[in-house]
């Protein structure tokens, strides 16, 4: 089974079709909508597998199929599909995880009376995301990027009747838009600089050597290479989409949406779009690698931002009480890791971590969803507790996910992917900041995850909902089990013993990179760090579990001010309100005044002018033109009246005239001898 690049469009088209179909269904047919959405995505998954087979057969090659979108007179706008291992792997992951999440959703959203719309939105999202993955054009990628944003907005705001939800949706949309402005600017600049937006186009694509060397050769303001500037602008989009510092604020709030959405969009797929983008344009990003005279390399910025984000997310996660918020900040942190990996020049490590993260974070979110569903939508970890006994399967899978996230050695995928990143960071010559940040992040991750597990699953229930929780139906748990399996199994794909991913991704031979024993010291260090984090967490939370929902957090008792600052998310939201928000308000006021007093006055003057012209016109018309027409009409009318006397309205009269005419005619014929 294989799939060529030219028929790659089928993968996003199927969910799109499903979205269109479900949109036309009546609201009561939620079950059918779910079936259509799941079926379409499952088919997409099968196609993706085909695409994967094709791509793996030619590692390192970029199969593409371009076509003309429309003709612009001066030039044509061309789009295309791209099939390489990156696309294929991502597609397979997105469709597979997506299918599982769809299945989970069909149970999770069972009681919602707008479930049909939910599946419509989900399908739309899947279509946009897959389109983004298969795009061979930055323009197509951008279109899908924005569609993904729209779908995400719709899904976060699915329960829009709750004000906080509506606000969160708005926040997510606007925040990512800020990043997208950068993306758009970069895109336009790139088009201006190279005249094309296609990634690969037989040597003329922007990611191919010709364009790259041209871009790297030019410099622009501040001595930056053009490629650096464009790369950084595009990275702005990735910052917004992937929740990187300083635009990470929307991601935790987006957890107001339904949990499957959180799992699908804000853990597995959409937030990974930023990482994917950077991975996709990696050649562009590293085009300035060899330039020494530039003030900054694009990848250094990426690495720094990634490191900061990784640390920031981990820190804030420590002090959160909302189950999904913790996972959200953990996602922020992990995305930071991926960016870090990209920044230090190891895209294969980043993608490997992206894949494993997608599985175990989707698992964690679905596990959280399972917990929340069972606990009657209770998300506060202080209210939960003691669920390990009540929801054994959920606990087991959740624990596997957590261990993968933490990086418990050897058997969990997270360990191997994180190890790859650490190794890459260690090997980066520019700065050691990312490496140390990553190490600290490992400790923190272990710590807050231990806290999470202890609070949610151990001890005893601290609320009615927690006490009455029970295991969910198999529709919800089966995806958990499958994801848990992959959370373990995926580790072996990229384990140092068999460096499959880098080999396939870059097309280089498998001998490249480190072997199992190459970085054994680093590995040992990270094991120690994990143990440290887990130990600290266990000491604080595990040994003596929380007794009541109102009890103060142990860490809060120890370091109250730090904890408070962390709990307030280091005040980023307030900062933005105070600065950006106020600036925005001032600008709005200014615009209002401008509109009211300047533009309005001009318009009013023009209106008056038009009225005056109309009056003049009318006077002329009535007096001069109409007089003549009236006279003509009058004469026509009197002529008509004269003629209409013949129309007596008496049918007999007409008939008589006809008869007379007939007789006359006949007589004329007979007597006149006309033959």
């Amino acid at each position, binding site marked *: 089974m294989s799939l060529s690049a030219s028929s790659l469009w089928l993968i996003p088209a199927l969910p799109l079709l499903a979205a269109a179909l479900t949109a036309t269904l009546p609201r009561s047919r939620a079950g059918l909508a779910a079936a259509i959405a799941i079926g379409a995505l499952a088919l997409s998954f099968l196609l993706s597998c085909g695409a994967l087979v094709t791509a793996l057969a030619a590692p390192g090659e970029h199969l593409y199929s371009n076509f003309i979108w429309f003709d612009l007179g001066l030039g044509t706008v061309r789009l295309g599909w791209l099939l390489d291992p990156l696309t294929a792997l991502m597609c397979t992951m997105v469709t597979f995880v997506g299918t599982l999440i769809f299945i989970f959703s069909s149970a999770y959203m069972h009681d919602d009376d707008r479930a049909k719309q939910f599946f419509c939105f989900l399908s739309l999202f899947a279509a946009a995301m897959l389109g983004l993955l298969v795009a061979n054009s930055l323009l197509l990628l951008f279109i899908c990027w924005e569609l993904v944003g729209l779908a995400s907005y719709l899904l976060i705001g699915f329960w829009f009747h709750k004000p906080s939800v509506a606000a969160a949706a708005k926040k997510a949309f606007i925040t990512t838009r800020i990043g997208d402005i950068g993306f758009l600017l970069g895109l336009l600049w790139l088009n201006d600089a190279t005249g094309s937006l296609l990634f690969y186009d037989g040597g003329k694509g922007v990611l191919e050597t010709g364009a790259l060397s041209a871009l790297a050769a030019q410099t622009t303001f501040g001595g930056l290479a053009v490629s650096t500037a464009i790369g950084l602008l595009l990275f702005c989009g990735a910052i917004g989409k992937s929740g990187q510092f300083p635009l990470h604020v929307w991601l935790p709030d987006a957890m107001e949406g339904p949990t499957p959405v959180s799992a699908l969009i804000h853990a597995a797929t959409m937030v990974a779009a930023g990482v994917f983008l950077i991975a996709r344009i990696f050649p562009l990003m590293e085009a300035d690698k060899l330039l020494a005279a530039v003030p900054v390399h694009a990848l250094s910025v990426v690495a720094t931002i990634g490191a900061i984000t990784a640390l920031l997310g981990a820190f804030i996660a420590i002090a959160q009480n909302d189950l999904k918020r913790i996972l959200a900040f953990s996602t922020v942190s992990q995305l930071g890791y991926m960016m870090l990996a990209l920044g230090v020049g190891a895209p294969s490590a980043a993608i490997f971590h992206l894949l494993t993260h997608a599985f175990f974070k989707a698992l964690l979110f679905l596990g959280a969803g399972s917990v929340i569903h069972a606990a009657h939508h209770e998300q506060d970890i202080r209210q939960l507790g003691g669920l390990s006994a009540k929801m054994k399967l959920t606990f087991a899978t959740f624990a596997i996910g957590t261990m993968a996230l933490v990086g418990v050695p050897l058997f969990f995928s997270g360990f191997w992917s994180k190890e790859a990143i650490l190794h890459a960071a260690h090997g980066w010559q520019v700065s050691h900041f990312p490496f140390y940040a990553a190490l600290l992040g490992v400790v923190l991750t272990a710590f807050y995850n231990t806290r999470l597990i202890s609070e949610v699953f151990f001890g005893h229930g601290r609320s009615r909902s927690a006490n009455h929780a029970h295991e969910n139906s198999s529709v919800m748990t089966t995806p958990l089990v499958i994801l848990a399996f992959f959370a373990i199994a995926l580790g072996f794909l990229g384990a140092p013993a068999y460096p499959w991913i880098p080999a396939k991704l870059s097309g280089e031979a498998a001998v490249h990179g480190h072997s199992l024993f190459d970085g054994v010291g680093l590995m040992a260090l990270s094991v120690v760090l994990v143990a440290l984090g887990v130990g600290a967490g266990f000491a604080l939370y595990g040994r003596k579990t929380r007794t009541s929902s109102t009890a103060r957090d142990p860490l809060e008792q120890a370091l109250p001010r730090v904890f408070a600052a962390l709990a307030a998310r280091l005040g980023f939201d307030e900062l933005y309100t105070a600065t950006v928000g106020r600036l925005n308000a001032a600008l709005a006021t200014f615009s209002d005044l401008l509109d009211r007093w300047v533009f309005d006055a001009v318009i009013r003057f023009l209106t008056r002018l038009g009225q005056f012209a109309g009056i003049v016109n009318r006077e002329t018309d009535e007096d001069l033109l109409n007089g003549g027409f009236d006279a003509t009409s009058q004469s026509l009318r009197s002529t008509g009246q004269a003629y209409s006397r013949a129309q007596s309205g008496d049918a*007999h009269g007409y008939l*008589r005239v006809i*008869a007379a005419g*007939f*007789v006359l005619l*006949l007589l004329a*014929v*007979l007597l006149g001898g006309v033959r």
Partner: protein
Amino acid sequence: MITLTFIALVTLAAAAVAMSQRNLIHSALLLVASWAGIAGFYLWAGAEFVAFAQILVYVGAVSMVVLFAVLLTRRSHAELAIAPASVKRILAAIVAGGAVLGALFGAVLSTPLASAAAPPPAISVKALGAQLLGRHTASVLLIAVLLTVALLGAVVIASTNSKEDAP
């Protein structure tokens, strides 16, 4: 010839009496008799298909429509006996009709018609059908469309769906 004269006289008498009757129903029924007489003429002339079609259409269908129309456009039994038309109009009608009759008779009698004593053309129903659906398919289709349109039009015209039309 005798048969033809007989048929013609009966038909003409029925038609003439129908046209001079004061009772509308009697007029209509006499007209039916006249139409039947014409059918008899067709039969006499050997066009039996046309004769039966004439009976089916006129005696079976048109007469019904006429009778329904008569009954739908009266308010009482007394109204069936319609007021006689003015003498002037009758005179004018007779003059006009007489003129036409004279002209036509004159034309017929003065024309040397080649009346061949040929055997009557025989045409079977099957041959007629073949002609209708062979050479004249377009005409048949046109007639079908015309009939459909006429039927629908008649229904629309005669229906009382708008309040304005209701009596």
